């Protein structure tokens, strides 16, 4: 069973067995425009909720993507290094950013579900 959460910062977090996969939403990639560079964390790095975990850069500007909870980076999406545009073409699929082992899954309580997120950007 997996559960997907959404943040006000337009990130999605899919949780499966205590591991969260994090990416940005379709709305976010559309707002940012064509991405040309992604700075990813190192596997094994420790993140605290609110830390800048990833920086995505469009032709015009750089934007931070925050850690939605405390935890340890389990894996990063290395394909983005050579093909940042995957985030534009498949933000909730092949354009995922990183996976992290959550220290305390309850930190995600209170985030939006998909219906609430969609309502928030409508």
């Amino acid at each position, binding site marked *: 069973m997996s559960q997907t959460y959404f943040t006000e910062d337009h990130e999605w977090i899919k949780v499966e067995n205590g591991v969260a996969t994090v990416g940005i939403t379709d709305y976010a990639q559309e*707002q940012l*425009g*064509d991405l*040309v*560079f992604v*700075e990813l964390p190192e596997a094994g790095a420790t993140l605290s909720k609110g830390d800048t975990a990833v*920086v995505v*850069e*469009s*032709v*015009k*500007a*750089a934007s931070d993507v925050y850690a939605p909870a405390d935890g340890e980076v389990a894996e990063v999406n290395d394909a983005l*290094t050579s093909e*940042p545009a995957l985030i*534009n073409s498949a933000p909730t699929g092949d354009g995922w950013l990183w996976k992290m082992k959550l220290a305390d899954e309850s930190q995600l309580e209170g985030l939006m579900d998909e219906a609430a997120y969609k309502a928030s950007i409508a």
Partner: protein
Amino acid sequence: MSDTKPQKHLPLEALHEDAGARFGAFAGWRMPLTYPAGVMKEHLHTRESAGLFDISHMQLFDVEGTGAADFLSRACPLDAAALREGQSKYTVLLNENAGIIDDLIVTRLGENRFMVVANAGNADRDEAHFRAIAGDFDVSFTRLERVLLALQGPHAEAVMIAAGLDLSDLTFMTGMEPREGWFAARSGYTGEDGFEIAMPLDEAERFARTLLDDERVQWVGLAARDSLRLEAGLCLHGQDLDENTDPASAAILWAVPKALREEGKFVGAQALQKIIADGAKEKRVGLKPEGRQPVRAGAPLINEAGEKIGRVTSGGFGPSAGHPVAMGYVTKTLSEPGTRLFTEVRGNRIALDVHSLPFTPQRYKKG
């Protein structure tokens, strides 16, 4: 800090809304930043076909009178009397310290008539400066209300002909008045061949629609306008040029003929002579960051030892170049192409090399 001044709206705003533009604030205007195609495709489309830009935020001034040429030669380092009818010239407005108030294009339209095109953000400052000088000359100085469109790219000329406006007699940096109240120049801000066309407000929508009906034409927003001009090595006033930079440091002395510098008639001439005699301490250069990470305006430039030796004034990704591109100011001794410099972005040291400008070849139609 948010901009609390009311935003100015483009006369053709509804057309941009219909095209699905995303808007943002620039120089006091609500401007289309991108369209649904996105900055990358808009940029490449301009280089491959014809990109249409609404640049009505830029300000046209009509300068007319028996003293017009002398007036312009006082206000700008420009031999206005030597311009042929129809000839355009890139020039600047300088303050008494030779600081660059704005960069402009001046076109001679008749014996005693000139058109000046100025940047949006500086239009009020320019007008006040021009008017302060105009008092000494027999000249009228008028702010024009126009829609200004730019059509840029290899198909621009053919598209114009198809739209009923044959401008094929114009060569790069020449201009004319094809219709009453219109002004057309073969110039632009992309490095491509193309035109900038001003027209009365009530004729603009129809003409823009005619251009857009041509399948070779696509709207291009401000985001791609910036990446195009940066690849072409062209300066953006407010970033690469300002009142604290002078034409020598900015590497645009080619626009200030030596004879005029020596003659010293224009505002700022004495200060500029002194800067040239003493040697400019810094120079504007192109910068090519190593790797894929863009380096943005405001980033410091440092040498191997970590000492500050300059600053980035414009930077981003060059869709046609296929790599990050930037420009900035460096200590004169480090301005040779190939010189290795560094910057720091979020704590990471990134290497950059001084690179000749432009990054992509300019494809103007010269005479």
